[in-house]
């Protein structure tokens, strides 16, 4: 029977399948961070259980970590206690940890791929909804809650029902200045925050095949913002080239065996998807969000919508509530929205390629005098690479702040937060109310739009800068 890529990966991990019960799915890699794991370890202790496969488990500190003074103890006692709990738990249960200051530390979804732990055909889970990022390698990767974290720690498996299959096909050539972030924001605006609910999305088509691994990760990362269980992309030569030589990638004869296996990971010609969505890459422009959920986005050429124009009552009410929270007036051109802060970073856009794109636009220029720009590399290794390339100097000479690695202002669990009423252009993934700090207002953008916006202090497309 013909299968989709996701079905192939799923079927290859079924430990047990019985009528009337969920399948038991084997998990190849379990990533752990400090926020969603302490109660799971407590549960293990309370039941007298151990971690079944510590060798398939990897932990890092990312959500709480400050991006300044990272070698000092964390000032916030509650954040510090949570990080210390992870250190105790990983030591007690024999799990590898990349703590603050370690060369392998970083956002959990940046370090997995960087270490070569994320490979095609794997099942990967983490107590974090952006685990879908790893799907860029053709892995079936999804976020779980703390009870499931405990379940995976104890058994290395999860009870699962096979998800439905959706194809998002993006063909055509992306215009200059338009990126993977704009593709995924356009997809979410089209299908809605619940459009992917119950599905695994496979991104395919000529525009996807041309993307780098970093760009593919950006797209798969935000699958959850469309409500999907996971998002993935078939592995190809770009994937293999990215992986080759990484610390945990197979070597020698193992590499050849792995590539032979990975090369079978494609959706069969006559496989059937339960739903299909098509997008023309050549028609895309930079996308920005105007509201308080990631589906409330528009091309930057647009204007703040009038809630009265929404036919669905729920959508209309949601738009009214969003505009009130965002302090926006219907009809305002999106380009006239002024921001206080620009945040470049996160598991969506905190990789080296994202920093390069932004640095190229900022090189030799100064950001707007009333705008603050935070640049937060996704990992210690990304930071080191950027510094080798001199990108840190480009950012600091432009007036931006160059910080240490972590989740930072994506969710403000560390000191990097918006103040009430402050407005950001952010390369992160969620524009929810208060996400970046109580009362903060977030516009989701690509790294290129973030950099262009930092230069002008208003939402700006990179193309707007030409001749400016």
């Amino acid at each position, binding site marked *: 029977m013909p299968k989709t890529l996701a079905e192939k990966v799923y079927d290859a991990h079924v430990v047990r399948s019985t009528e009337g019960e969920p399948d038991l799915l*084997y998990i190849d890699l379990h990533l752990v961070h400090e926020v969603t794991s302490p109660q799971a370890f*407590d549960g293990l202790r309370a039941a007298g259980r151990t971690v079944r496969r510590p060798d398939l488990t990897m932990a890092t500190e990312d959500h709480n970590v400050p991006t300044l003074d990272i070698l000092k103890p964390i000032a916030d006692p509650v954040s510090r206690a949570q990080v210390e709990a992870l250190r105790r738990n990983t030591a007690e249960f024999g799990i590898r940890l990349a703590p603050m200051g370690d060369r392998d530390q970083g956002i959990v979804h940046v370090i997995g791929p960087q*270490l070569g732990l994320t490979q095609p055909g794997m099942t990967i889970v983490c107590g974090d909804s952006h685990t879908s990022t790893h799907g860029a390698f053709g892995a079936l990767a999804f976020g779980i809650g703390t*009870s499931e974290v405990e379940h995976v720690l104890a058994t290395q498996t999860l009870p699962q*029902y096979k998800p439905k299959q959706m194809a998002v096909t993006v063909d055509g050539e992306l215009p200059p200045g338009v990126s993977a972030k704009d593709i995924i924001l356009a997809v979410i605006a089209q299908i809605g925050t619940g459009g992917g609910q119950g599905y695994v999305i496979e991104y395919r088509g000529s525009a996807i095949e041309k993307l780098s691994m970093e760009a593919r990760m950006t797209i798969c990362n935000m699958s959850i913002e469309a409500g999907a269980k996971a998002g993935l992309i078939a592995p190809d030569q770009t994937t293999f080239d990215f992986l080759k030589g990484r610390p945990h990638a197979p070597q020698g004869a193992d590499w050849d065996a792995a590539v032979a296996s990975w090369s079978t990971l494609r959706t069969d010609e006559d496989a059937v998807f339960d739903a299909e969505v098509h997008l023309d890459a050549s028609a895309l422009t930079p996308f920005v969000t105007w509201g308080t959920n990631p589906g409330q986005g528009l091309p930057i050429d647009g204007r703040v919508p009038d809630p009265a124009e929404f036919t669905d009552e*729920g959508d209309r009410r949601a738009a009214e509530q969003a505009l009130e929270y965002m302090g926006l007036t219907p009809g305002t051109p999106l380009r006239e929205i002024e921001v206080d802060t620009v945040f470049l970073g996160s598991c969506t856009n905190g990789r080296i390629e994202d920093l390069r794109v932004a640095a190229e636009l900022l090189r030799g220029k100064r950001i707007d005098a009333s705008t603050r720009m935070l640049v937060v590399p996704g990992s210690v290794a990304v930071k080191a690479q950027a510094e080798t390339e001199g990108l840190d100097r480009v950012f600091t000479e432009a007036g931006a702040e160059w910080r240490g690695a972590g989740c930072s202002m994506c969710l403000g669990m560390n000191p990097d937060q918006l103040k009430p009423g402050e407005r950001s252009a952010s390369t992160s993934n969620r524009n929810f109310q208060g996400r970046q700090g109580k009362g903060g207002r977030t516009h989701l953008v690509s790294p290129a739009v973030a950099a262009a916006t930092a230069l002008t202090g208003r939402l700006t497309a990179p193309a707007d800068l030409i001749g400016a």
Partner: protein
Amino acid sequence: MDAFTTHTGTAAPLRRTNVDTDQIIPAEYLKRITRTGFEDGLFVAWRTNEPDFVLNRPEYANASILVAGPDFGTGSSREHANWALLDGGFRVVISPRFADIFRNNSTKAGLLTVVLPEAEVEALWAAIEADPALPVTVDLQAEQVTYGDTTVPFQIDPYTRWRLLEGLDDVGLTERHLDDIEAFEATRPSWKPTALPAR
């Protein structure tokens, strides 16, 4: 996990769509390492900033059933959202559509999620707005929601229903299949990575 069979209580109408888990409980409350005591973070921004927010109104202060618009529980995978709802006195959330991870977490934490069509949610909203003291019964055994003269059926997968009715712990159930797990592990290719330090 406590077993869930049937629950009768009053219900609060949350007329909002896309209630993400950052609204249910903001990130600052996630720094705690306990599994209980999250009620102070439940909808804290709306409780603080909106005096007429539904849960600030005395007639809904003791509600144990939350009736929300579509796409409830989107966003972050934080199970703290489910714990906060339970700690805040809720046993059931009704919505036309739930985010997958939230719904999954609910089945583990013992919070019942009930999917009803939008029209049924609208009717229930109207009924509990007209009479906030109206008793609403959610019967998992019979798979139906009853209030006044109205009875609405709902569906839930039989396995999850059984687990909730019995209050069974998933890990214990899976441990019955250790032989299958070991047999599967014996077939994994040797080149699959481990997380042990590589060099």
